[in-house]
């Protein structure tokens, strides 16, 4: 049985897509077959981190949802060159075309279709892990992604504007009966006592923290240029992403 993981945040800019891409790369480097689904249909973007351009992606998740393609046609093998690993990464992007985005916002889609499509993906691509990169905030698409997940990762920044929204996302996930809830705190200032802050976050939300990712100018520059963990395997940040990947396999 494939593990389904949603990565969510209440607000944008928490580093969600970067985390999804890097964790997927580490899982694949560890021999796992990983699907990455971009359900951020309103503002897709994770394909860039896997070196893909929207113009070169003829089929997307949108085509599947409108019945114009089978979901496997919208799955792209984006596995980067990795030494001695049988792992793969398959990306199912959302369309970056504004007319497609407008249609989703206007008409919505059948949640049952999405879930059946994900099942097809799992079977046809023999996936071990399926990671869903969600749209920030709580809307119908994100609620569906959260509901079908075995694990929900909620990403937040140490920022007063994130505190309440994170609490809402956690509470909603609890009411949907998500079995595993994890928090990832990103962009933590280097001078902050990370251990003390982690303890306080865990106490506030009654939820374990998978990693405290430090704020780093270096990472902001290097992280936008591709998969950080593969370019800098010995970097302390890579170890923290590995910590998240390990939690998904427990």
């Amino acid at each position: 049985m494939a593990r389904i993981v949603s990565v969510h945040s209440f607000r944008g800019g928490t580093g969600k897509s970067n985390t999804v891409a890097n964790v997927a790369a580490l899982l694949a480097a560890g021999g796992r077959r990983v699907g990455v689904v971009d359900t951020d249909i309103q503002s897709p973007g994770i394909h860039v981190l896997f070196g893909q351009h929207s113009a070169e992606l003829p089929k997307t998740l949108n085509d599947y949802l409108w019945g114009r393609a089978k979901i496997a046609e919208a799955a792209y093998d984006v596995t980067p060159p990795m030494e001695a690993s049988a792992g793969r990464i398959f990306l199912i992007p959302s369309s970056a075309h504004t007319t497609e985005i407008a249609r989703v916002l206007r008409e919505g889609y059948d949640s049952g279709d999405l879930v059946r499509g994900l099942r097809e993906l799992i079977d046809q691509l023999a996936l071990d892990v399926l990671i869903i990169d969600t749209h920030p905030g709580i809307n119908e698409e994100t609620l569906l992604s959260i509901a079908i997940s075995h694990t929900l990762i909620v990403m937040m920044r140490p920022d007063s504007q994130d505190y309440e929204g994170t609490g809402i996302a956690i509470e909603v996930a609890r009411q949907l009966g998500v079995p595993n809830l994890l928090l990832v705190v990103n962009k933590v200032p280097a001078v902050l006592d990370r251990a003390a802050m982690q303890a306080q976050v865990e106490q506030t939300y009654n939820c374990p923290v998978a990693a405290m990712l430090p704020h780093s100018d270096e990472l902001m520059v290097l992280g936008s240029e591709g998969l950080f963990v593969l370019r800098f395997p010995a970097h302390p940040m890579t170890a923290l992403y590995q910590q998240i990947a390990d939690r998904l396999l427990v």
Partner: protein
Amino acid sequence: MMEIKGRILVVDDYVLNRMQLKRALETQGHTVALAEDGRQALEMLNAGDYDLVLLDILMPEIDGFEVLTRLKNDPARRDLPVIVISALDEMENVVRCIGMGAEDFLPKPFDPLLLRARIGACLEKKRLRDQEVEYLQQVARVTAAAAAMEAGDFTPDSLDDVAARPDELGQLGRVFQRMAQEVVAREQALKQQVHDLRIQVDEARKASQVAEITESDYFQQLQSRVGDLRKILDT
């Protein structure tokens, strides 16, 4: 150059010598205290604060050698300069005293010019020595402040007197103090931010927003279908 004035203890068992020295030294602007033997001298040294001791060597009971020995064995007073008073025919005793740590000697009978020159030189040397000791103590304060900063128990006003110096050490003290204050302020702001994490989650407002989501038709439908949706994926 302006002559340095000091607090001088004159120790001599011969009253005429004491009075003569007192008059000469006070004429030169110094403050003078008198002791008529070694015992009284040691008592006065324990009780008071002096810049210089004029010490006769040959005295009944506790003589000048004994006073000198006790002074040099006392860590708090070993740097107090001592000029021994002696007749020219006691040169052997003078040499012994200098070997024990006396700064200089003053021959009897006293010559006012020689007295002025030796006292002045001795006080100037002491002033320089005091400055050096204070400088080294304040350097040690700055290094101790750095260690305290690392241990997280530095208090900025502990360097106030170092920062008040007009020289480079004072500048170091001021820069250190300012940087430390900035670091402390930043850390306090961050600690406050972490503290705010607990208090800024408004539970009532959160509960109301959660209810708004969970009471919606979509959520209710989703909740009733979630079991079926999971079955599609898990079976």
